[in-house]
């Protein structure tokens, strides 16, 4: 569904990641963009240029926060200092919802700075849901949890990834940031049908969609966010829109970043799939 409780009943269209190489262009030319997504951790600082830029962006644009270090799937408790800094940022941006990943990434206070996959077990689902609920209650903003791309599977898993995602979001009563590219990457790495994934997630919980590019290596695919979106991912995106409806969509391009116009042009390709869905629905 488009506007729902998990994106705070907003109706955002196609968004872009706010990236340093594009700051000057955006501030100078003020391009028409529905919304920007920021990486929360890049702005959880105490001063300086990052916040100066953010404040200027906030004057002109909608901004939504996306985190990479909450680690909902961690066996450790959520980091309270992290939550406090995050809440200060939430108040600054007035983000309508906040997202982070279904993963772990730190243990005993040491950080991997990666989004590590989890064993899909019922115990892990309960613990993860508890962390999400704690974060949502503290931050007082709807939370969407994102499926990650992965390169390893665990013997301990008791269910598929999409079953795990469904279980966690049901227990936490939270939203889903459905990363279509991550589904594709994981499906190639783990030999499952990506459409089975798409068909079996709780569509009413999807508050946002991510699309991105990836890199193919001889024996696996890596989620590099450094290419245009590839055709199989666009096809999956079209299918997702048919199932879910028009939903806030964000193009991630985080490395080998081309000009703003090139990234924007790539993101706006998503509109053709959204418009097609409307035509089909109208017919």
């Amino acid at each position, binding site marked *: 569904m488009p506007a729902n409780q998990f994106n705070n009943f907003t109706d955002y269209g196609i968004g872009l990641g706010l990236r340093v190489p594009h700051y000057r262009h955006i501030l100078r030319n003020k391009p028409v963009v529905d919304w920007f997504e920021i990486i929360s951790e890049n702005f959880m600082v105490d*001063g300086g240029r990052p916040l100066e830029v953010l404040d200027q962006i906030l004057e002109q644009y909608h901004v939504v926060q996306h985190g990479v270090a909450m680690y909902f799937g961690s066996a450790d408790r959520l980091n309270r200092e992290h939550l406090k800094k995050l809440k200060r940022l939430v108040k600054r941006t007035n983000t309508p919802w906040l997202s982070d990943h279904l993963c772990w990434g730190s243990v005993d206070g040491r950080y991997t*700075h990666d989004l590590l996959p989890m064993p899909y077990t019922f115990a892990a689902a309960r613990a993860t849901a508890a962390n999400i609920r704690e974060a949502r209650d503290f931050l007082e903003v709807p939370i969407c949890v994102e499926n990650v791309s992965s390169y*390893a599977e665990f*013997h301990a898993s008791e269910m598929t990834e999409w079953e795990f995602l469904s279980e966690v979001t049901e227990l936490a009563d939270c939203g889903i940031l459905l990363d279509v590219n991550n589904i594709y990457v994981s499906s190639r790495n783990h030999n499952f049908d990506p459409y089975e994934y798409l068909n079996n997630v709780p569509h009413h919980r999807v508050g946002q969609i991510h699309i991105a590019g990836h890199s193919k290596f001889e024996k696996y695919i890596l989620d590099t966010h450094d290419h245009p979106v590839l055709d199989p991912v666009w096809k999956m995106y079209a299918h997702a829109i048919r199932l879910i409806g028009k939903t806030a969509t964000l193009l991630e391009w985080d490395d080998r970043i081309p000009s703003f116009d090139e990234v924007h042009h790539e993101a706006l390709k998503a509109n053709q799939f959204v418009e097609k869905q409307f035509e089909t629905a109208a017919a």
Partner: protein
Amino acid sequence: MASAIFRPLTDDNRMQPQWTDGSRTALVAERFIKPNDRLTSFDRLEIYNRVYWFRVLDCLYDDYPGLRAIVGEKRFMELATAYLTKYPSVSFTLRNLGERLEKFLREEPHWLAPHQELALDMARFEWAQVVAFDDAALPAIATDEVLDTPPSKLRIGLQPYLSLLVLNYAVDRFFVAVQKREADVLRDEASNTFETMPHSKRPRGKRMRLPRRQHIHVAVHRYDNSLFYKRLDPEAFAILQSLRRGETVEKACTNAIASSSLKKINWAARIKTWFEDWSSLGWFCQRLK
């Protein structure tokens, strides 16, 4: 899995084949990771091991170009690996990755031989830039408070983003030269790919001439959200250090003049100019209670 990820890579950037207890890492990986039709359990775990080290080493590589220029690329990667093995990241942000680097280099100075002092100066200077970039800016001290309080009682805070460094080498100017060289060398660099350690694709320029010994006092700060390095007279530096320690303005100035070797100086005029400069740069703030 975390233990495997944090273990350093081999010299050819692969996961170590032997586990900490002498057994094969492959056997350890097989216990918890499923293989697929193309990759073994070891292969799949290795992806994460390599991504971790590529990411954190690339971050330090970018944050310490000056230190790299002094110790050399190969030695830098070795010391960075040793540093992160001993002091892995304990912050959610990569920004803080170098926070304990000076501590590590003082504990293990052999990594910096034969330029220990110079390299340490540079490491401190480069960390000060991280601090200057996004540390807090506290509210400025009110003019009324300054005017209404006699110097014998006035205590002024210094902005948290301001670092005051005593250095034995002109690393500030050397750093600028390094930046220029890196910009020239990297202009046509091919983009990084995952399959090789990112920095290894970067062309290596000629080794730069290292700075000579020179005792200097430098303030690393930001102004209008741009980074600056400002050389200070020893007396000016002494005043700022005293203010940071919480001394009154009067005591800070008196002590700085008393310890100066300069004679026949109009200290009143000179100190007035310094305070005007520092105030216009925004260095003064409310003291934290």
